[in-house]
């Protein structure tokens, strides 16, 4: 159980996330939606503590995550893996080493700096890659892969952390529809295995298709929290004061993607 209480983050005079409270039971797949500047990214980054909250508390199974430092903080980060919009792979390293980055926290300092991993870990990494049909690319440099392949490598890296939670910040905003589907299917697949997934999405349809629960943010505040069926076009208009099409456009703008609804017809 992940519990968030009154989570707030201010950047100067601007409040990015404003008193958000949320309880996420283990194994749920939660879609977080919102327009440009709604605070989705800041919220996810605060959970991993890449950004520190100004106020509020994050608790995971009784542990106060907001108070963690040093070794304990790194252990927490290992357990809540992060997936980024731009994949954030090390472009100049091979795919296998990129995936093994997920093991670094468990390795002794010296051997890990020498890029020495055990045969078991390599087998884990190759199996994770194989699961996403990427085992053949293991020794290629990451920058030789397409965007969709890179995001799948990033998911393999996350899986090697053996996480309890996966935080995905706009994982498909930089991908084409086909790769988006592959990546979302992969996230849904690992969620089915018991990993809690929090995923920021700009696309309502994707959120409805894949998530058990949708959380909507507007100007940093939580404005909707419920199952996808309840997030009707009418409800969108109530919450955001715009139609679903306008919402889609504004949300897509935030991540530099094209909204699916207004995309050029195929």
């Amino acid at each position, binding site marked *: 159980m992940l519990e968030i209480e009154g989570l707030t983050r201010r950047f100067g005079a601007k409040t990015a996330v404003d008193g958000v409270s949320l309880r996420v039971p283990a194994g749920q797949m939660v879609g977080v939606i919102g327009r440009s500047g709604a605070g989705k990214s800041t919220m996810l980054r605060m959970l991993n503590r890449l950004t520190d909250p100004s106020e509020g508390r994050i608790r995971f199974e009784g542990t106060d995550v907001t108070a963690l430092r040093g070794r304990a903080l790194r252990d927490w980060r290992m357990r809540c893996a992060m997936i980024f919009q731009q994949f954030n792979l090390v472009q100049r390293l091979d795919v296998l080493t990129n995936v093994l980055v997920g093991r670094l926290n468990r390795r002794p300092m010296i051997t890990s700096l020498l890029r020495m991993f055990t045969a078991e870990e390599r087998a884990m990494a190759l199996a994770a890659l*194989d699961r996403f049909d990427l085992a053949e690319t*293991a020794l290629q440099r990451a920058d030789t892969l397409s965007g969709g392949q890179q995001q799948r490598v990033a998911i393999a890296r996350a899986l090697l952390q053996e996480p309890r939670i996966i935080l995905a910040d706009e994982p498909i905003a930089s991908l084409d529809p086909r790769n988006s589907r592959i990546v979302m299917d992969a996230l849904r697949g690992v969620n089915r295995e018991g990993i809690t997934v929090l995923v920021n999405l700009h696309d309502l349809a994707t959120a409805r298709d894949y998530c058990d629960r949708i959380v909507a943010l507007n100007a940093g505040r939580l404005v909707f929290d419920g199952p996808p069926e309840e997030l009707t076009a009418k409800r969108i208009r109530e919450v955001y004061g715009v139609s679903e099409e306008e919402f889609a456009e504004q949300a897509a703008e935030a991540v530099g993607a094209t909204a699916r609804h207004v995309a050029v017809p195929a």
Partner: protein
Amino acid sequence: MSAAYSTGLPAVIRGEEAYRAAQRQKRVQAALGAAILLACLLAAAWVSEAHPATLWAGLPRIGEYFSRILPDLRWASLFADAETEGSIAFWLYRLPEWAWLIFETANMAALATLMGSAAALLLSFPAARNIAPSPLAFHLARRTLEALRTVPEIVYALIFVWAFGVGPLAGILAIALHSAGANGKLFAEAIENADLKPWEAVRAAGGSWGHGCRFAVLPQVLPNFLSYLLLRFEVNIRSASVIGFVGAGGIGEELYKVISFNYYEEISAIVLLVILTVACVDLLSERLRHAAIGRLEAAR
């Protein structure tokens, strides 16, 4: 290998085997490289007569020299006037002249750095392999930069002293030429590491080669260039304080004199002043760099 086999997945086993083959190849290459490096090191030591025995025998004499050039300071008369032996003032009795010479040296270094780096900036774009307009321009720029930096500064200085007479101008030109060659290579390498996607966009929009350099490459590499320029400034202060040995201005002439006349205490005084100057420049350039990079980022 058992870990991969026990998964029973053919792709994982193939991957592990490929990894092991690559690893074996890397190890062979690394061992071969290390052996060649060691052989070269030994050969270089043999040719340059860098025998460990000589090194060992000479070490104590370094300490001896240092103890000779150390000033004879006495606690009781430390702050007395320049006439009293053992005072700081007595040690640094020519401070006003030296301070002026060091100021001149720093100015020579600054001018030479600016002139050299300006030339380096122009030559670095054709000398960058990834954006060079033609192989001819590339090789021409590269070879020019090489020639500029391989000729020792002191040789340039001798030529310019012969041409322009004794004085700082000869030193400035000599150091500027060397800076152009050294920084040009570093600038070109920074450009080679730049992202070429913006370059493609500028060229695709009908921009000229110069437009590409100015709008796609320069904004990316400017912070690097600035770091290299400030580093070069420090190096040039050192060069400018030695180049006076051949009459090309700055503190060097004075340093050469005190060394050749064995005025031991004065050697340490001048060296201390040069070190202090370099430390000041270091502090200053650090701030300058941060301020400039901050403004570059803000201007974007």
